[in-house]
C-alpha cells in the first residue's frame, strides 16, 4: 500500500490577496494534478484591471490554458485561442489577461509558457537559476482592432530534487510603488527576499513560501494592497508522509497487522478512534493518556501515545475534519481542537496513507442518538476524495 516514493514529488502551494477594498480577486490561480499520469499543471493569470471584470478575464484564461494543457494541445495554438477568445474591454479597446503556464511531467521535465506576467523564477541550490527562454511571436487576426503581434516566452528544464518554481502576478513586483524605500515598487527586490527566506529556512514548504511572499507585498503597500496579488510555488521534494488509521479491522485477526503498519510507518502517524487506539495500545503495549486540559466543546479531547503523533476520537472528529476541508482557503488555521490538529498535519503532508477498519460499531447506528454518526467507510472515502481533488495530495486508501 505504501506508495512508490522514488518518483519526484511536487508540492504546490498558493496564496492570494485581493486589492484593498475588493471582494473579488482579479487574478486566477488554477492547478491540476493528475494522479495516473503523475503530472502537475499550474496556471496563473492576471486579468486587465481589477474586480469582477478582471476576475472573469483571468478565470477564462486560466481555465482555457489549464484544460488545453491537460489535453496536450500545442502551446502556440493554445495561446492564440486564448488571445482571440477574450472579450474586448470597452474602455481600453483591448482584450487582455496575462498568463503563465507551468506543466511538469512525471519524469521531471517542465515546460513553461509566459505571457506578460512577471518573470517566472526558478530556484536551484538556494539561488536564482536563469532559464533559457525562447521568444515566440503570436500574430493576431486581422479582424481585431488591435493588431499588434504578441510575444510569448517558452522555456523548459529538467527538474531536480529541491528545485523550486515561483510565479506571481504583478501585484507582487509592483507592491510598494510610491514608497520612500521603493519608489518604483518591489521589483527585483522580491528575488532577494526569496533567496534570503530560503537561506533562513531551506526546507520551507511551498504553502508557507507563497504565503510569505504575498504577505510581504501586502506589507510593502502598508496593508492596503494596490492590486490583486497572487503567488504560486512549486517545490520538488522528498514527499512528507502521513498515516491516518481509523476504525477496527473487520476481522480481529487483522488487529496485529494494523498495529504493525502503525509501528513500521516512516512518517507522521495519526490514530483516530477509541477502539482503534485501544487495539494499537494493546498490540504495541503503549499506554494511552487522555489529555483533559484543553477541551474544545464540540470535539472529544486528544490523547497521547508514545511514538504516535496524534491520537483522537474517531467519527466525530473525522466528520468535522471533512467539513473544514470542504471550506475554501484561506482562513485562520490556528484553531484549537483535534480536528484542526489533523487538518494542520494534512496541510504539511504530501502523501497520505489512510488505513480504515471497516468493522461497524452497531451501537452507533442507534436512531435515538442525539448526533447522527456517519458510517466510517463513507466518511473516509469522502476525505480521500477531498484530499486528492482539492488539496492535491496523493492518497492511498486501504480498507482492512
Amino acid at each position, binding site marked *: 500500500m505504501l506508495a512508490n516514493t522514488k518518483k519526484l514529488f511536487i508540492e504546490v502551494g498558493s496564496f492570494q490577496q485581493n486589492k484593498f477594498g475588493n471582494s473579488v480577486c482579479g487574478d486566477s490561480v488554477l492547478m491540476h494534478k493528475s494522479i495516473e499520469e503523475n503530472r502537475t499543471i499550474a496556471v496563473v493569470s492576471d486579468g486587465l484591471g481589477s474586480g469582477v471584470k478582471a476576475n472573469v478575464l483571468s478565470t477564462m484564461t486560466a481555465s482555457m490554458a489549464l484544460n488545453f494543457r491537460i489535453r496536450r494541445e500545442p502551446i502556440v495554438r493554445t495561446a492564440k485561442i486564448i488571445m482571440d477568445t477574450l472579450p474586448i474591454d470597452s474602455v481600453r479597446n483591448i482584450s487582455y489577461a496575462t498568463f503563465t503556464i507551468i506543466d511538469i511531467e512525471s519524469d521531471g521535465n517542465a515546460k513553461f509558457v509566459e505571457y506578460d506576467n512577471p518573470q517566472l523564477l526558478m530556484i536551484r541550490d538556494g539561488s536564482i537559476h536563469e532559464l533559457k527562454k525562447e521568444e515566440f511571436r503570436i500574430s493576431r487576426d486581422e479582424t481585431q482592432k488591435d493588431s499588434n503581434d504578441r510575444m510569448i516566452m517558452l522555456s523548459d528544464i529538467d527538474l531536480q530534487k529541491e528545485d523550486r518554481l515561483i510565479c506571481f502576478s504583478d501585484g507582487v513586483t509592483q507592491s510598494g510603488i510610491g514608497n520612500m524605500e521603493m519608489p518604483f515598487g518591489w521589483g527585483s527586490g522580491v528575488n532577494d527576499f526569496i533567496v534570503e527566506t530560503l537561506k533562513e529556512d531551506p526546507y520551507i514548504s511551498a504553502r508557507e513560501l507563497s504565503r510569505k511572499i504575498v504577505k510581504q507585498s501586502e506589507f510593502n503597500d502598508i496593508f492596503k494592497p494596490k492590486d490583486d496579488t497572487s503567488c504560486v510555488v512549486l517545490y520538488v521534494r522528498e514527499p512528507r508522509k502521513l498515516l491516518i488509521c481509523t476504525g477496527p479491522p473487520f476481522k480481529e485477526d487483522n488487529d496485529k497487522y494494523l498495529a504493525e503498519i502503525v509501528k513500521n510507518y516512516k512518517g507522521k502517524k495519526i490514530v483516530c478512534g*477509541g477502539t482503534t487506539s*485501544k487495539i494499537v495500545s494493546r498490540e504495541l503495549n503503549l499506554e494511552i493518556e*487522555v489529555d*483533559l486540559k484543553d477541551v474544545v466543546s464540540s470535539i*472529544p479531547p486528544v490523547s497521547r501515545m508514545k511514538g504516535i503523533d496524534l491520537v483522537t476520537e474517531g467519527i466525530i472528529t473525522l466528520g468535522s475534519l471533512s467539513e473544514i476541508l470542504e471550506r475554501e482557503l484561506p482562513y485562520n488555521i490556528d484553531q484549537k481542537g483535534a480536528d484542526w490538529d489533523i487538518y494542520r498535519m494534512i496541510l504539511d503532508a504530501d502523501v497520505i496513507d489512510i488505513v480504515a477498519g471497516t468493522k461497524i460499531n452497531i451501537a452507533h447506528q442507534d436512531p435515538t442518538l442525539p448526533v447522527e454518526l456517519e458510517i466510517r467507510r463513507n466518511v473516509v472515502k469522502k476525505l480521500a476524495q477531498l484530499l486528492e481533488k482539492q488539496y492535491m495530495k496523493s492518497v492511498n486508501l486501504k480498507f482492512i
Partner: protein
Amino acid sequence: MLNVRICVGTYCYITGSSDLIKLKDRLPEEIKDKVSFIGSACLGCDESEENPNPPYAKVGDVLIKQCNEEKLLDEIYSQLGIER
C-alpha cells in the same frame, strides 16, 4: 488520590461524557484535592455487552454505566467515605 476515568470514545461522548469531563473544573471543595480526573479512549462498552449503556465512567475499580453527574459524585463520595 482517587482515579476517576471518563470514557471519551464516540459513543460515550455524544451520550453525555462531554459534560462529565467538564465536571473536573467545578468539583466541590471537600473532594477537589482527593480525586484526579483522567480521560480514557475507551472503557470497553462496545465489545463487552450486548446492550451497551453509555456513557461509561470508572471510579477506582468500579464501572458506572449510564453515568451522569449525580451517579458519579455519589460513587466518588462513597469511595472517599465522605458524607454527601
